[in-house]
């Protein structure tokens, strides 16, 4: 499996970077190229293919197969049919009826991701993960030990294939922005170095849409000015840009167009938040069902907090309505908690405080923020709180779950299983006749 990928990878690397490209692949003159952007190729799909070698080379997508499912990852074979992530599953199947759909397995992806991030951290402590499958690395220190950035990039690619059996693409450049553009250009299974003195020649022919922060609206505004490429933007007086798209955005784009991006690689301080959310199989308006889902999500979030030895001070509730408008409400607690009941009570209060009159809800989410280590976090107790209380009870539940499997002990309200309608078997009231 990995052998075939390596061979394929090598071919693609050659093919991807053409010789007339202004950028020299494998350039040794990589002075100042300290930033690496590493991006896994079709990450979820690649993870799945590790255990399904029979599917290699076929159009494969990962995603929920229900009526509401969307594509979360697609192999490059599937992408040739025009399939891309975030596309509704039904559309993907129309584009390629032969496509193979695999259900997502987030535990697997998290595990592979942890392995990949560990490789990065072997190289440098300055790792800024952007998601499960991509990260920025600052290798300015590591170069003294490991040689030129390009070699480091190749070493990372080789180790990822070797240890995790998936491929990735690395962009090497003096700034985060250029590094990300470089990896996008070199995908899949490639590596591209953009030396400092080639940044402008690399950047200027790109369409304005490549600039970080340019969405549809800004792109339209720039097009109206007749600016199609990054070079056009760079050669427009900054005042003109500011008039067209505003002070902040104008200055920002002008700087980027000249390859200037001062953002450092920031190592995140611990985990920022832990959350869980659920899209209902169909929109619901029964507060009882929403409460139950909030309970289930709270149990999940709090058990992850306990598992990681963290407590959270801020609980956030997210609600997406049938028309896709999304709101979130948060409450900060007196002291950090990892107790499911407290997370649930807070999230449910936030939901009740919305005062929804049977508004149709598409999704609810519960998130714990303001995380600190449980061991160094003071815990405010109530005067009438028993010394051994819910926290201890839930720790016992965790132990039972560890031994007998998830859900060995759970709130009675969540017990109803055996139905696959996503409501945990709860009877769903039929829609009243109009």
């Amino acid at each position, binding site marked *: 499996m990995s052998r075939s990928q390596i061979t394929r990878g090598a071919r693609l690397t050659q093919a991807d970077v053409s010789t007339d490209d202004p950028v020299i692949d494998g350039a040794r003159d990589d002075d100042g190229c300290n930033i690496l952007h590493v991006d896994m190729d079709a990450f979820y799909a690649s993870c799945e293919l590790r255990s399904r070698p029979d599917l290699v080379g076929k159009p494969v997508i990962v995603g929920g197969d229900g009526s509401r499912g969307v594509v979360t990852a697609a192999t490059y074979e599937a992408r040739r049919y025009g399939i891309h992530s975030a596309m509704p599953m039904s559309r993907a199947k129309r584009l390629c009826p032969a496509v193979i759909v695999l259900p997502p397995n987030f535990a697997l992806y998290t595990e592979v991701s942890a392995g990949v991030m560990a490789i990065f951290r072997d190289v440098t402590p300055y790792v800024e993960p952007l998601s499960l499958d991509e990260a920025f690395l600052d290798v300015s220190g590591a170069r003294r030990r490991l040689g030129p950035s390009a070699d480091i990039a190749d070493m990372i690619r080789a180790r990822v294939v070797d240890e995790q059996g998936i491929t990735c693409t690395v962009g090497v450049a003096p700034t985060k922005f250029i590094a990300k553009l470089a990896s996008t250009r070199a995908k899949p299974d490639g590596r591209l170095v953009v030396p400092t003195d080639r940044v402008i020649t690399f950047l200027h022919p790109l369409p304005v849409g490549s600039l970080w922060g340019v969405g549809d609206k800004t792109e339209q505004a720039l097009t109206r000015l007749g600016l199609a490429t990054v070079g056009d933007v760079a050669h427009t007086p900054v005042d003109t840009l500011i008039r067209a798209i505003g002070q902040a955005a104008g200055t920002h784009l002008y700087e980027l167009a000249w390859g200037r991006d001062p953002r450092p690689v920031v190592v995140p301080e611990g985990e920022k938040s832990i959350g869980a959310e659920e899209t209902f199989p169909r929109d619901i308006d029964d507060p009882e069902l929403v409460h139950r889902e909030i309970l289930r999500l709270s149990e999940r979030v709090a058990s992850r907090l306990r598992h990681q030895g963290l407590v959270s*001070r801020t609980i956030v509730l997210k609600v997406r309505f049938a028309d896709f408008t999304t709101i979130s409400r948060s409450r900060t607690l*007196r002291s950090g908690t990892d107790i499911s009941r407290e997370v649930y009570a807070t999230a449910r209060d936030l939901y009740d405080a919305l005062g929804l009159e049977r508004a149709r809800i598409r999704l609810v989410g519960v998130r714990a923020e303001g995380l600190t280590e449980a061991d*160094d976090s*003071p*815990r*405010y107790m*109530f*005067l*009438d709180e028993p010394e051994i209380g819910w926290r201890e009870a839930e720790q016992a539940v965790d132990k039972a779950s560890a031994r007998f499997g998830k859900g060995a002990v759970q709130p009675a309200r969540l017990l109803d299983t055996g139905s696959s309608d996503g409501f945990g078997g709860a009877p769903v009231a039929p829609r009243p006749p109009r």
Partner: protein
Amino acid sequence: MKFRLERDVIADAVAWTARTLPTRPSMPMLAGLLIEATDQQLMLSSFDFEVSGRVLVNADVMEPGRVLVSGRLLADISRLLPAAPVTISVEGSRVEVTCGRSSFTLPTLPVDDYPSLPDMPGSSGTVPGSVFAHAVAQVAIAAGRDDTLPTLTGVRVEILDNTITLAATDRYRLAVREFPWTPANTSLDVQALVPARTLADTAKSLAGCDEVHLALAASGASDGLMGFEGDGRRTTTRLLDGEFPKYRALLPSESATTATVDTAALVEAVKRVSLVAERNTPVRLMFADGEVELRAGTGDEAQANESLECSVDGAAIEIAFNPQYLQDGLSALDDATTHLSFTTATRPAVLTGGSQASSPSYRYLLMPVRLSS
């Protein structure tokens, strides 16, 4: 209507009555202050269906009458008037306020729909204003401020014969104060839950009275009101519903360690040390060997340390508190020395005044902060 009185008299009376006016009245007329002039007396009233205020002052009444004006505006005006007699008269649908060479014309509000103020509840008794104000202030500090738990935003008032007990808790601390009063009739046994903020404001505003009348309907016949009256000023407030926690069960009956320390010195030390206690982190107190050591700050953050003399009796104990809650309790004791008693580092500590260690009239119960799981 037309009357005249001294600037200080009207300014005080208006300020006291307007004190409880709602900032966002549910009905426009509730932002009004009712002025009623009768035979050489002036009555000012305010009411928002929760709290009523009424004050009687003597005035030179030339023409009796009744009018409703914006209370906030009248309070602002009377506060800044020059020191001279003030004349207030109604001219058509407007009120004219004249003082020295300045004059104001205010619109009136329709007076006919103004609700009548509730009567004072039946049973009553008296207590010196300063005693009452001090007792309420000591207790109200522990009341909750979270409106989602309305029961805890109140002060529990218990009257049993000639003793009044006040109690308040936000579940992190509990303050209990007992004091004697003079009931009009004996064998009283009534309880009520009074909004803490209103009670504290009222008690403070009546602190200067030699005698404050307290009125609370006997249990069972409760019309949900408590009344306060002193020096011609009268306030009623609606009571809170709900079951106040059974706080007596929380008061520990025994202790493993007791300590006595100079209150002012401990307050100063807590203030200093808690400078490095970031939001929400506690200050740790270690009581042992004739001193208490205070510490705050952890790990790589700033840290502080201070120790002071303290007589310690019993086992050494290390215990952590929210610095603000600790300061609140120490200040509320109002005693030169503080007596602290502990059972364990995870059970409530009790603070009492050192001068009345044997039978404290005030107890401040404080839940420690647990440091690690």
